[in-house]
């Protein structure tokens, strides 16, 4: 992992159509919306820092995650997709590069099926969200923390990037409770997918890059092939030293791939 210093931008509190969330923004250049995966909210890591060298990165926190209050109205993954389309409208972001990792990739894919015209490009990093024949996503809700780490990460030490959360205090446990509930509201059953999404992926008109960790045990490469097959013209890049979170395990390489892909799409406009 890259250990150069990361300057964490201040967290802003905003209200998106009445739903309060936190968001960090930094960088220069075209707008890029980054949607985090479950358990990774609120953090600004090397990956975001690298993207911010070329783009103005907006990194909101999903409702109920990492200190953003729970939103009782959210019942379905499409509610989150509309929530972020609302955020684009309210922030005056007409067109963005949209990058989503894991659960955030699922939300990003739903958004792309609804509003491709708002996207300069779409990057999905080991997304979940579709049913892939012969594969059942391992049920993280039944796992303790060490089991989750060994399922999600190729190199378990990489999980330390997400570690600074207080596991000993009641507040820390309540935050995890809130986050698990926020995820379960939309992902418990069917688990980590929307049965309607896969057929709709064919609607995506934005240039799409799929980034995948070769050792992903949550959504293995067979899932990547299914996504590549469904999204017209999608490009697949794999990362040899990563599990489910290549942007955390190989942040420089993944960021370089994202920057290259998105800049090429800027030039093509």
């Amino acid at each position, binding site marked *: 992992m890259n250990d150069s210093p990361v300057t964490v931008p201040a967290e802003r509190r905003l209200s998106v159509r009445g739903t309060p969330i936190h968001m960090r923004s930094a960088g220069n250049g075209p707008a890029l919306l980054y949607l985090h995966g479950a358990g990774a909210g609120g953090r600004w890591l090397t990956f975001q820092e690298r993207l911010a060298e070329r783009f103005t990165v907006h990194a909101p926190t999903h409702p109920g995650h990492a200190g953003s209050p*729970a939103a009782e109205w959210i019942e379905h993954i499409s509610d989150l997709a509309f929530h972020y389309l609302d955020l684009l409208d309210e922030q005056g972001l007409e067109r963005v590069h949209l990058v989503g990792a894991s659960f955030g990739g699922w939300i990003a894919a739903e958004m792309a099926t609804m509003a491709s015209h708002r996207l300069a490009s779409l990057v999905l990093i080991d997304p979940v969200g579709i049913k892939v024949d012969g594969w059942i996503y391992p049920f993280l*809700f039944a796992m*303790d923390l060490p089991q989750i780490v060994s399922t999600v990460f190729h190199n378990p030490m990489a999980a330390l990037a997400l570690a600074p959360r207080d596991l000993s205090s009641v507040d820390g*446990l309540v935050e995890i*409770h809130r986050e*698990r509930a926020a*995820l*379960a*509201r939309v992902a418990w*059953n069917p688990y980590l997918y929307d049965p309607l999404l896969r057929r709709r992926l064919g609607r995506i008109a934005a240039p799409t890059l799929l980034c995948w960790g070769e050792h992903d045990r949550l959504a293995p490469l067979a899932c990547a092939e299914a996504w590549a097959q469904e999204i017209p013209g999608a490009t697949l890049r794999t990362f040899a030293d990563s599990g489910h979170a290549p942007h955390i395990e190989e942040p420089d390489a993944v960021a370089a791939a994202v920057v290259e892909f998105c800049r090429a799409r800027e030039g093509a406009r």
Partner: protein
Amino acid sequence: MKFYYFHLMPYPMEHDEPSSWVTLSNRHYDPEVGHTLYNQYLDQFEHAERLGWDGVCVNEHHQNCYGTMPSPNIMAAMLARRTTRARIAVLGNGLPLRENPLRIAEEIAMLDVVSGGRIISGFVRGIGPEYYSVGVNPTHSRDRFYEAAELILRAWTEDGPFPFDGRFYRYHWVNPWPRPLQRPHPPVWCPSQGSTETVEWAAKRRFPYLMVFTPISRIAQIYAEYREACERFGYTASPYQLTVNLPIVVAENDAKARKIAQENALWVYHTGLRIPIPFWQPPGYLSEGSFRRAMTSRPKLPTELTFEDLEEGGYIIVGSPATVRDRLRVFSDELKAGIVCSGMPAGTHEATLDMMEMFAREVMPHFREDAHVDETAGVGR
């Protein structure tokens, strides 16, 4: 005080798996053994009625060796025909676990009509691991519980047909045949572990509150909250609204009772309730407030309890008839609980029958000042 005989109908076995629920393979279940166990357990219930118990209690749990009654209504149906006097308490049906809760309204009504109005209908949410076994979204658990309860109560009390258009349950015609025999409906009990929301909900409706496998200090605290809530809703709780559920082991003397309890009563806690933390805590099953309260008090997990914890904490009652009477007085006189639901973990079937007889002969008669009071009058509806 009223006495109800309670049974989990366990499949007693030892194993080294991390969980006795959800994932413990059913290859361990030998139906030949199960045949013997089920029939012994049902015999014990029938024995309880003959010995003077006021009621018998069955309950719903799924995919475990702790309690093998996935359908409590089936057990209640057998008891309805094999008993004539005792109340039959289903503690309870897991309302949110059902896709069609109207089925509960139908089944309880059937049981009530067949039994001549002896049914008590417990409404429960099911414990954490149940949500892993059944697949229902635990973040919907509480709202499904409230909605199903409203549907069932209306189905029992309003003339049908009427439409019901809820968030989870929708019907053009709610019109179950039969209707229950008891009017306006069978008493409803709420077995629970003390979440603030359930205490309020039950107190508001005069539904008796049942604490299951809880230390006596916490029972006292939750009872106080329940009583206070009843006062706020404009009435004083009857003793028959406060029920405790705990195992009792009685023998000729304290030493013998303790030996029997050490051999048999620990299994429920150390094996039957061996449940990994994620299964105890499905996401969103507890409200944030209840979760915070649980994490602040941090009660021991069942598997962490020693025999001394169980005895001193008041999770169980163990001793000679005199000792058991003294311990029960704490519940009847200090906590003012009107009903005790207890099983008797004695070991073998024969030992259980003997222990029940000793309890009925040497303990129960000392608590019968209320022998002619109907514990269901004015409560539970």
